[in-house]
């Protein structure tokens, strides 16, 4: 190991030099290539770098990796003297993680961090588990994506299980309602902590198969009295037991909306508990969390005296779509912009619109709905079959630019329009908002 640490010095120097050269030559920030080359030619570098950080948390799962990671970092950062390293959203393959470590280390290959909170792509976990030796592994949920016909999710479940099996000393925090994650440690010796919602909420969640009911004596945290507020903050209470000690938290809040974020918050609080952080500190940390790109952020468009807020809730699969709709049921006078593209990053097959429970809108008080994006017309057909009483014909305007203008005209000053875009529709929408933001 000491040998490896010494060897790190020239490797890190090389990586940093390469990054600098790439940056000076104008080839982007140049962070991917050094990670790739180092990973390929010096496979021990990852282990040598991570092993310097005393506490390593690995977060994986289908949805909510980034949010859980951000929440946990916010919570840990409350503690004086800690220094948290995290990889960037999306840079969750071994290369991306290695690049981040190389970037954060000093010239001598030294990393001055107390904690690493790493988001890890599901299939990557078993490939790097023995290298990063996580103290804690969290699995948010396991949803099938829309292109999964041939048991991909079964394979993913197995891969994560293999990853956990390689780390017998790691504590494991899993979603206790999702039948796929709840069974991950069955037959393994890992200490396991379940995070779950009280059954009256969990039944809204489109898990695959029967909702798991965890055993009464199991360890973990459960959220009750979940209240989604009009400003889309979410309040809830927490009870449970961690390592034999009862936990009672009468009120916690996330500034981001919805049941998914309650799971993410519970995951962060359970991990904080395992790290010895007290509840008051953890709850305070949770509130400093800001929602990321497309996950509840608000963009404002202003023209003259008129100002309209656009609240973005990314939809990427039936689960996230159904859950966003569940949230919006409580909003009075709901104004909705549904933006559906079918580019590769969105999923080219729009069948998933039919697996999404648009029927939940029947309990909402809808002012108007506008469909946009390449598949605006598909969305309009889905709504026609979902709504018992549509608020008149549902307009479908493929051009997102025109739909944005139309929505702005239709809205009153001060209104909030909820935008549910697929990934590329969101990128386009944000770009358009960037240009129109300052129009006076």
């Amino acid at each position, binding site marked *: 190991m000491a040998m490896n640490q010494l060897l790190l010095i020239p490797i890190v120097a090389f990586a940093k030099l390469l990054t600098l050269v790439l940056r000076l030559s104008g080839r982007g920030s140049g962070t991917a290539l050094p990670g790739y080359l180092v990973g390929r030619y010096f496979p021990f570098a990852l282990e040598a770098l991570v092993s310097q950080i005393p506490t390593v948390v690995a977060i994986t799962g289908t949805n909510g990796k980034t949010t859980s990671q951000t929440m946990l970092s916010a919570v840990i950062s409350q503690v004086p003297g800690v220094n948290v390293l995290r990889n960037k959203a999306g840079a969750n393959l071994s290369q991306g993680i290695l690049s981040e470590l190389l970037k954060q280390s000093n010239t001598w290959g030294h990393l001055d961090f107390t904690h690493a909170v790493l988001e890890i792509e599901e299939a990557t976990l078993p490939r790097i588990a023995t290298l990063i030796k996580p103290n804690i592994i969290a699995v948010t949920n396991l949803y099938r994506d829309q292109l999964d016909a041939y048991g991909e999710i079964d394979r993913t479940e197995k891969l994560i299980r293999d990853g956990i099996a390689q780390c017998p000393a790691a504590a494991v925090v899993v979603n206790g309602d999702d039948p796929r994650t709840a069974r991950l440690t069955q037959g393994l010796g890992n200490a396991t902590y379940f995070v779950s919602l009280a059954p009256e909420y969990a039944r809204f969640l489109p898990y695959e198969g029967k909702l798991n009911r965890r055993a009464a004596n199991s360890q973990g945290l459960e959220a009750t009295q979940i209240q989604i507020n009009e400003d889309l903050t979410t309040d809830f209470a927490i009870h449970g037991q961690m390592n034999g000690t009862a936990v009672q938290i009468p009120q916690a809040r996330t500034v981001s909306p919805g049941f998914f974020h309650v799971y993410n918050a519970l995951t962060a609080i359970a991990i904080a508990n395992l790290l010895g952080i007290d509840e008051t500190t953890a709850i305070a940390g949770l509130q400093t969390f800001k929602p990321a790109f497309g996950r509840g952020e608000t963009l404002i468009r202003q023209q003259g005296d008129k100002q309209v807020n656009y609240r973005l809730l990314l939809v990427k699969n039936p689960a996230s779509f159904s859950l966003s709709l569940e949230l919006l049921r409580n909003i009075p006078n709901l104004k909705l912009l549904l933006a559906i593209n079918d580019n590769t990053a969105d999923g080219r097959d729009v*069948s998933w619109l039919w697996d999404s429970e648009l029927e939940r809108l029947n309990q909402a008080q809808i002012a108007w709905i506008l469909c946009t994006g390449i598949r605006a017309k*598909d969305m309009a057909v889905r709504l026609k079959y979902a709504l018992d009483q549509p608020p008149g014909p549902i307009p479908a305007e493929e051009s997102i630019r025109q739909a944005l203008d139309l929505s702005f005209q239709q809205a009153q000053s001060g209104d909030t329009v909820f935008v549910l875009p697929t990934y590329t529709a969101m990128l386009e929408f944000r770009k358009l908002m960037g240009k129109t933001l300052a129009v006076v």
Partner: protein
Amino acid sequence: MPYALTITHLYPDHLNLYGDLGNLIVLRCRCQWMGLDCTVNSLTLGEPARRGTTDIYFMGGGQDTDQMAVVNDFHQLKRDAIQADTEAGAVFLGVCGGYQLMGNTFLMGNGEVTQGLGIIDVSTQAPGADVKQRCIGNLVAELTDAIYADMQTLYATPKDIPRTLVGFENHSGQTYLGKGVEPLARTIAGFGNNATAEYEGARYKNIFGSYMHGSLLPKNPHFADYLIGLALRRRYPEAAIALPVLPDTEELAAHSYAVQRYR
């Protein structure tokens, strides 16, 4: 219309990929809009099928483990009743994995070819060396003359219906039709049954198979009506069936947009 129809969704918990539910939603809503009394039942693992109780069977696709479980269950508890029904003209629609599954053999993800339900004489094989990739993408196909002509006779007043079907395909299995099985449509864009033939889907009696999801019936309301019409004709042989013409503005707009964009 003072008629009733019973739809049976086969294995809804196990075969439910790619918006299969959309096909059921569309059948149910359109029956209601036409004033038909429509019941949707589901029939899953461990439940025996009863002959003469279903007008339209629907089956979607699933993952390998689920499809395997279905094959054994089907042969033990359902095949005799369902085959007696379909041989007597009951409507059956299988989509994608469901289409492959209802044939003699189908293809699993690991490349293994397995015995299917055997209610229609089609078989699905692993792609040979000439097929380079999965058949994946938007699919546009033109209904056969016979089916298109028959479709138009169903309505109470003439209805301007498209000749095309649109959907999205995603399969590596290559499906071949046996003797006595007709194709459903001629492929215009995409692959359909296999990478070399020019046809999409299959028909034998009132059994239909198609590779289209997207989902299939929402954007092809004329095909949904056809299944409803065929089921009514069989259940009420004495009556002159004439379907009300529903205003399919949204459905047909989505249909023509897909034809234009993806053909």
